[in-house]
């Protein structure tokens, strides 16, 4: 353990800390002697038990992010963290989730502390000093490290480490209200829109059925949804059909979407571009249906069906229904 003090930016939603936050805490335990979680949103006291269970001994609670209207977290959270460092705190490394807000905070803090950031991390050495990155759709792996002084800022992708509780007691909550961040923190959330979803979450499902442009039209995505439901899985998508507006972004799998590692990934009418592969190649089993025998998706599939999704999927749905 080369590092003393490791901080984790622990994001929390309504259901408590995100799974990625718990993955980061788990990793932080192995690279650092002591782990501190930094959190905001007003739920620190409530989350102290679970954050403690996954390894945090202390929580810096930045509270809610102001009234009227909630500030976007990037600027105020980075300001608060910078203030703690300027006030004498000495984290050797800070782990950020590769989420929308996580990347914003990391970018802002990087400038405030004048430290570079290493992003897109999918693996890390036990001493916390070198990191791994997928290149070219995961066909190669680069190893990187910082050469200057800490704190080392690391942005880590989901599913890079398994979350495991360590059985620690509740973490001590320390209030660290965000200082006035000035004009940089002027962006306000006016309203939130939640897109409906049923069934398991995409990044937690044991089965993921994804559709791509090969479906031909937005209507045909129903085949994917129905199949996902029959297999008790979650429907996913390639970016091509998210960009086309067929399905919400929350379904996108890949480099700019979710990383999934289900027991079974079923790709329907997806070519298998490197940016898609990098988000699903870690699946335990992969089945692909594509009418083009040379589609790159077949190079990672355990079972590849060269065929038309409009024939194979309805037949599969019928067969499953009649069981």
């Amino acid at each position: 353990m080369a590092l003393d003090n490791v901080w984790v930016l622990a994001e929390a939603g309504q259901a408590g800390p995100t799974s990625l936050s718990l993955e980061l805490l788990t990793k932080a335990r192995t690279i650092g002697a002591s782990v501190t979680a930094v959190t905001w949103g007003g739920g620190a006291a409530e989350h102290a038990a679970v954050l403690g269970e996954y390894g945090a001994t202390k929580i810096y609670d930045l509270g809610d992010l102001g009234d009227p209207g909630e500030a976007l977290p990037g600027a105020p959270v980075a300001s608060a963290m910078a203030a703690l460092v300027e006030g004498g705190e000495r984290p050797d490394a800070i782990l950020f989730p590769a989420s929308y807000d996580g990347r914003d905070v990391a970018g802002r803090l990087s400038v405030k502390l004048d430290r570079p950031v290493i992003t897109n991390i999918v693996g890390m050495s036990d001493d916390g000093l070198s990191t791994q990155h997928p290149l070219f759709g995961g066909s190669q792996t680069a190893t990187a490290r910082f050469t200057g002084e800490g704190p080392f800022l690391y942005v880590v992708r989901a599913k890079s480490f398994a979350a495991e509780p360590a059985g620690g007691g509740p973490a001590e909550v320390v209030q660290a209200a965000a200082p006035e961040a000035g004009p940089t923190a002027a962006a306000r959330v006016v309203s939130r829109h939640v897109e409906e979803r049923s069934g398991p979450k995409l990044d937690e499902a044991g089965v993921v059925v994804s559709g791509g442009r090969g479906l031909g039209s937005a209507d045909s995505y129903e085949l994917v949804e129905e199949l996902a439901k029959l297999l008790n899985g979650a429907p996913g998508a390639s970016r091509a059909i998210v960009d086309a507006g067929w399905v919400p972004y929350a379904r996108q799998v890949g480099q700019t979407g979710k990383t999934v590692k289900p027991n079974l990934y079923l790709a329907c009418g997806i070519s298998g571009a490197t940016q898609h592969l990098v988000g699903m190649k870690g699946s335990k089993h992969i089945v692909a249906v594509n009418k083009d025998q040379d589609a790159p998706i077949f190079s990672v599939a355990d079972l590849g069906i060269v065929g038309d999704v409009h024939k194979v999927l309805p037949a599969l749905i019928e067969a499953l229904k009649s069981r």
Partner: protein
Amino acid sequence: MNVVVCVKQIPDPAAPSALDPVTHNLDRSGKLILDDSDSYGVEMGLQLASGVGDEVILVSMAPGGETSGLRTALAMGAARAILVSDDALSGTDSLGTAKVLAAAISRAEPDLVLTATESTDGYTGTIPAQIAELLGLPSVTFAKKIAVDGSTVRVERQTEAGFDEVECPLPAVVSVTAGVVEPRYPSFKGIMAAKSKPVDVLAVADLGIDGGQVGSAGARQEVTDVADAEVREGGEIVVDEGNGAERILAFLEELKVI
């Protein structure tokens, strides 16, 4: 309204990519093209800056005085470009890149700065927030819809669960996703006009940036190794002759998924 759009010029992603075996930097010695991800920002900028006297100004950092990608964006309709190109920039890390871009952007005194959420070749995705912090501006990342209303920008920002409506005073930095607009194709007239549009080429010294902060010398991170990842073996390929669904079913049974 003046809109600065950051556009990265990158090696053609369709061509096989390579890393320099010694420095592990991406080989950028060939011809570069406009990063497709930035074409959305260019289009958004053109739609927002459509009033009299409005301008879309491109900002790019690229080696070898490269302008091919800039010409594509100028052909779409941008008014002019600022290109930072300097041998001293080779090996610059993302914070250094953000410092260079921020210094170039501030010369254009924009009301709005647009970037993509992440570049196709580097995809660190932290540069938009870094630029905003360096310029002392607020930012909204992951925009899927943008409207400007007086001195306020209204953004629909992607979230895990859906989207948030965000309001932010101008000037501001906004990063856009591919869903935000449909980029136009440059017209023949646009392509011809682009040839004579001004491209201001600057060196590091012109920006008042200390050379020690950029390039390999200023980079405080390094790639120590690049290795082939474990290959995932392809499995059985079956041509569907009416039996495709059955084969999948059998496989699902084998996995005990059903």
